[in-house]
């Protein structure tokens, strides 16, 4: 069973958590974003066959929403971390341009 390290609680079985999907960068200016930009944020995903940043929710524990970087081909967790300002920009830089 996959072990996830909750930033609050430490290493727990994956069954304690709920998967929150791939991290999708929010529109920088939500009130001015076009429908296409909203659709991109809501629906488009990289779905990489490799390392991917994604959301997890500690449902059976502390209730924290946090991010994990996990290699989806090997199903191995690289790291888990709490969302902070700028993390989406860093991800965008690493991932390259979204089309």
């Amino acid at each position: 069973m996959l072990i996830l390290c909750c930033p609050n609680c430490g290493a727990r079985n994956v069954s304690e958590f709920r998967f929150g999907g791939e991290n999708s960068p929010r529109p920088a200016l939500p009130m001015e974003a076009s429908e296409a930009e909203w659709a991109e944020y809501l629906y488009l995903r990289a779905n990489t066959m490799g390392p991917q940043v994604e959301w997890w929710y500690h449902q059976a524990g502390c209730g924290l929403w946090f991010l994990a970087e996990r290699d989806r081909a090997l199903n191995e967790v690289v790291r888990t971390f709490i969302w902070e300002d700028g993390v989406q920009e860093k991800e965008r830089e690493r991932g390259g341009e979204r089309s």
Partner: protein
Amino acid sequence: MSLKLIRQALNRHRPPPRMWRAHPLKKRYDVIIIGGGAHGLACAHYLAKDHGVTDVAVLEKSYIGSGGSGRNTAIIRANYLTPEGVRFYHQSLMLYEDLAGELDFNVMFSQRGHLTLAHTDGAVRTMRRRAEVNRLQGVDSRLVGPEELARLCPHLDLSQRPRYPILAALYHPPGGIIRHDAVVWGYAHQADTRGIHIHQQTEVTGIDAGDGGAVQGVQTTRGYVEAGTVLNATAGWGSTIAAMVDLELPLETFPLQACVTEPLKPFLDTVIVSGSLHVYVSQSDRGELVMGASIDPYASYSLNSSLDFLEGIAGHMLELFPFLGEARILRQWAGPCEMPPDFSPLMGKTPVSGFLLDVGWGTYGFKASPICGKTMAQLIATGETPDLIAPFRLSRFAELDLVGEKGAASVGQ
């Protein structure tokens, strides 16, 4: 037929005929289909048969049918939720009914009836709605109560003992099961006889979209191939191929697991699906119970099987058929399911000229193979998107015009 076999057996010098041949990879084809599954091969077949387009290569990274086509639980049905979905899957079902004749190959389609159980009032309402939507589209479906259920499937536990007793079911008589490999092989053989090249062990590693956003060719593990039209028919790995033209799709790939029991005496005449219990089951011609459930709880391309899945499915199966307590699991496996937000496929043109999609097939792709092959072949040959698949265009997301089939596409979580 038997004379041929005897002659073959006696003739040591002539190699036995192959269902599909191996060819050298040409430098150029008119059409490249990436993905040698039921969808890709069906498209190749209809391109050749319906439109006379034969300068086609099907590129398969492993052996044909090694992806979703070889891993599904072989259920065919048309009892979806939306009018667009029902219309679409109904066309597919009708093609399946004639498929053995079309392919001159026994695909063992057994239209034994399909039951979707309702365990709650809300589920009964949904089944009633599905029945009505189905009937409006000319699809045979109706709601049945416990008495008729007892006649159709006497071994079901219809008592009040289960935690969620069965209240009713959506009965879809034309639904059934099929030999999924045979569909792949039948399409491959027909395409091959008409001159289409099927290239196994040939992985596409890049797509050349030139400078003007138009497809020029593909890079493979056996060399570069020029083509003006490239079809992405790699559901499960659709995003990986689309990324080669810098196209992002609204997909996340999850494993879907399945398992079979040892062969048992025939007792289950219909396909049984329970949305509430997240389990579906049918009995194969060998007597094995073929069982599946919902997708794994988190996205992954790793297709490992898990004990979680077996424990979960066993518990739910015993709610339906308590006498199966001693049955043994013979084998389990998994396949990759790329899930769009509305549980409807991605079909048709993309912003990259010449690059077409037939992906986003989640947990509902195999049953659509014939109609997908037919409509994508029509699109490739004529350049026009057939009306039947227009609802599944990639641009529907930007247009916020989704086709919500989650209620009927799978036994969701």
